[in-house]
């Protein structure tokens, strides 16, 4: 049987959701991946993935989907309070299903980085900041800044989709776009940047202060920060990616006021030029969760997945949806051993599926089943998949719909 090449598939390796991937397929197996980075290829190629789960499990033993769903529904019905964990590694349809399920059964949602999202949303509302799309970074930006963000490691093709792409008003690409990186370690992204600012001792606030006073016309003593201030002054459109280095709970708790200060700086800079901001989260559908939560806010309790152990009381149930909660938070190892029933929906074997009472493996989103996902800039994309869904498997959204019907 000949090899079939499928073009323009979507990669769910990270939040960039590259949609220019080509995949060679023969007899339902993926042979080669073209145009994806190493991270994406590892996700798409079968040899690169973690051990996969092919059939449902109940109490560690193989079961039919029907039996496993019935057992999951029985556990959910008997619970006083259910905590649903995850959401950043599933399709938009599944996220909507999670929100519906949480509303219907009065469950709480444990979302990765939730407290960061919350602070960010509050600050953005307060300061009236605009996000930008990748299209604007390609077509309009002449200064692209990565602040505490390291896409070369975490979303490897982001630089080609922004800095190196030639755009409508930036036709010579990198030649007319300046790349600046501010970080507290010499990241690979900083390696080839035009302006590199290595922040001492996590003193991001110091850099922000110097930049603010520089833009206000005062003298900036550090020559590199001064270069960045000059680049800001002469730029027409600056796109600022803000990354995990300053968007994590430890940093935000340790540096209260920094985020507000940064957003105030962006707003003030906008008086003379256009400056837009985009937070960078790398889980492939982190942006999808943000959007769903923004529209459903207030309907249920939401907290950070790291706080899960303190939210689970005896007799409660955890529904881990595409999330390896046992590995994610140290306290959860004890939780796994404590006998709190866990229902895990995951296609790969993890410490969480090992500890789960019921395991429901969905087909792999973006490879075996489609749906939609939200790219890091808020654009929703259809997931085009190289393989057909194997007989007898269900997508994450279908599993949720079944649970919703039965719970």
């Amino acid at each position, binding site marked *: 049987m000949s090899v079939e*090449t499928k*073009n*323009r598939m979507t990669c769910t390796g990270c939040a960039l959701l*590259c*949609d*220019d991937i*080509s995949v060679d397929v023969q007899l339902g197996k993926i042979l*080669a*991946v*073209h*145009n*994806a*980075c*190493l*991270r*994406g*290829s*590892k996700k798409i*190629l079968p040899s690169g993935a973690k051990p996969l789960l092919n059939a449902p499990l109940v109490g560690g033993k193989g079961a039919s989907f029907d039996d496993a769903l019935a057992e999951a529904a029985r556990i959910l019905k008997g619970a006083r309070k259910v905590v649903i964990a995850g959401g950043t590694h599933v399709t938009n349809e599944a996220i909507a299903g999670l929100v519906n399920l949480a509303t219907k059964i009065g469950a709480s949602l444990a979302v990765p980085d939730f407290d960061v999202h919350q602070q960010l949303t509050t600050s953005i509302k307060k300061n009236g900041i605009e996000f930008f799309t990748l299209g604007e970074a*390609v077509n309009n930006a002449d200064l692209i800044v990565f602040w505490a963000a390291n896409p*070369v490691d975490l979303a*490897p*093709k982001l*630089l*080609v*989709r*922004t800095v*190196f*792409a*030639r*755009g409508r008003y930036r036709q010579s*690409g*990198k030649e007319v776009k300046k790349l600046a990186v501010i970080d507290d370690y010499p990241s*690979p*992204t900083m*390696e*080839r940047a035009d302006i590199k600012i290595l922040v001492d001792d996590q003193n991001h606030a110091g850099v922000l202060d110097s930049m603010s006073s520089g833009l206000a016309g005062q003298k900036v003593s550090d020559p590199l920060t001064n270069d960045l201030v000059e680049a800001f002054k002469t730029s027409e459109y600056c796109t600022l990616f803000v990354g995990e280095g300053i968007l994590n709970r430890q940093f935000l708790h340790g540096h209260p006021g920094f985020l507000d200060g940064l957003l105030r700086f962006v707003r003030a800079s906008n008086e003379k030029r256009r400056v837009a901001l985009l937070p960078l989260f790398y889980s492939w559908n982190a942006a999808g969760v943000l959007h769903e939560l923004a529209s459903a806010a207030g309907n249920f309790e939401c907290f950070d997945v790291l706080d899960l152990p303190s939210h689970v009381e005896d007799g409660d149930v955890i529904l881990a949806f595409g999330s390896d909660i046992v590995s994610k938070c140290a306290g959860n190892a004890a939780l796994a051993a404590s006998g709190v029933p866990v229902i895990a929906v995951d296609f790969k074997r993890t410490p969480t599926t090992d500890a789960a009472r019921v395991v429901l493996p969905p087909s792999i989103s973006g490879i075996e089943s489609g749906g939609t996902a939200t790219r890091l800039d808020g654009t929703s994309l259809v997931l085009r998949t190289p393989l057909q869904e194997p007989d007898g498997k269900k997508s994450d959204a279908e599993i949720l719909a079944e649970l919703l019907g039965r719970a």
Partner: protein
Amino acid sequence: MGGINALDVYKLLPKTNCKKCGMLCMQFAVELLKGTKQPEDCPPILEPKNAQNLEKLRAITEPLKQATETGIVLNEDACDGCGICVIACPVNPRFSLECLSGKAPDLPLPKGIIYALEDGKCKIKSIEECRRYTPPRTNCRVCEIYCPRYAIEIKT
């Protein structure tokens, strides 16, 4: 010698625009980089007062004369498939418009594409289209300059 451009070469020339070589100094600098002219084609540079600059020019142009191959060495172990070489290479967009917008071309790859990603690693496909290879040869180093993993090295 990474990143030598026509302006760097021009600075080493007498900059008198005397046209004894048949052209202006800046144009001569470009031709030197292409390998179509040699430093000795500029009579004033042979004068003793310019001996130092002549040496420097020879150091730049000598490797280009010998460059029958492009001299590109790929270290696949270091590459993580960020695709910067695919998009930054000035030749790739000539064969695939997608490269202009930062996306990679569909398969089968258009003939002439130099860099492409396969299983997460960069591969050289049509070395004969490289600007270092086809006459008039230029000392292009774009892929080497921008690779964040230092996975591309140009030996000449």
